[in-house]
């Protein structure tokens, strides 16, 4: 935490600041909403199943607690074809590079759900072998607690993710920001 905050530039910044590349007009907003709707209702998941939560994942994906009604029916076991990385179960230090590599292999736009407490925070395995939450490795959008979470809880988390996806800004053509392109 900084002991002093630099207040020299504050008076120069206007009260409401907009950034030009993030400003959306009316039609862009419509496109964004449309793409958001399409993307949230067709999340293709990569079930990175490791442990006990996998059993609840099987229940969620099956006929009774149907995840297909939310559009997320299709599990694609190739990261190239998936947009939702569903990390189900404990990730330990040996598995961590595998998870990171799979996340990197997925194409944008992509989201990550940490399914279960082991993925969210390491669960009660606070020891030498377990990664204390996958957010140490990959950015996570939604955390679903539970050991294992009930299927209804999982669906709740999925709906939360769908709201997040809808609210995000989607563009027809995603351009890399200029600084990143120049830097690489």
């Amino acid at each position, binding site marked *: 935490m900084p002991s002093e905050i630099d207040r020299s530039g504050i008076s120069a910044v206007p009260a409401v600041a907009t950034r030009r590349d993030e400003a959306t007009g009316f039609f862009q907003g419509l496109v964004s909403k449309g793409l958001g709707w399409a993307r949230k209702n067709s999340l293709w998941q990569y079930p990175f199943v490791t442990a006990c939560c996998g059993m609840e994942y099987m229940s969620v994906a099956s006929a009774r607690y149907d995840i297909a009604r939310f559009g997320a029916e299709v599990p694609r076991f190739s990261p190239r074809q998936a947009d939702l990385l569903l990390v189900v179960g404990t990730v330990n230090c*040996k598995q961590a590079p595998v998870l990171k590599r799979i996340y990197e292999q997925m194409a944008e736009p992509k989201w990550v759900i940490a399914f279960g407490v082991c993925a969210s925070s390491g669960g009660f395995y606070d020891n030498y*072998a377990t990664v204390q939450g996958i957010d140490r490795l990959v950015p996570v959008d939604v955390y679903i607690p539970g050991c294992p979470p009930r299927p209804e809880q999982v669906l709740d988390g999925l709906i939360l993710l769908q709201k997040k996806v809808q609210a995000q800004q989607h563009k027809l053509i995603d351009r890399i920001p200029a600084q990143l392109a120049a830097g690489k």
Partner: protein
Amino acid sequence: MSQAAAEALLARFPSDVTRAPVGPGGDDVVFVKKERIADACRFLKEDPALRFNMAPYVTAVDYLGQEPRFEVVYNLYSSSLNHRLRLRVKVPESDLAVPSVCGVWRGADWFERYCYDMYGITFPGHPDPRRLFMYEEFVGHPLRKDYPLRGRQPLTPEREVADLFRGPGPESRD
């Protein structure tokens, strides 16, 4: 449990085997000297009256503070004669090599690798002596009592593995 098996083993290897006090639940336990464990196991498997044909459950215990520090425990059982026996082998920290019983039962393979990975006990004669659970670059042996529960490991660089079969690891074991 099998008194008869313990007696037979004592009779066959009188200088290397000692009886342990009868444990809770009536388990029959004998202490076997480290050097003769493979011979004792072969005898127990092949003797027609004993026939411990199933691969045993092998594990190790770290009695930190006692000397000898480690103990390798073999829980033998026989499906045909339906009896069980436990062999305990004391292993001092100064000499962590225990003859492998993989030649007697192939199924002892992974149990011995587990003992190596978790405790550091080596098994000369084992066909594939590498770690079982932890990754190759892991430093230390986690189940030892002096390894902290929340031990953190130094970071290792991501590696490209040229030969998927051999995998990474010290060249000496290839």
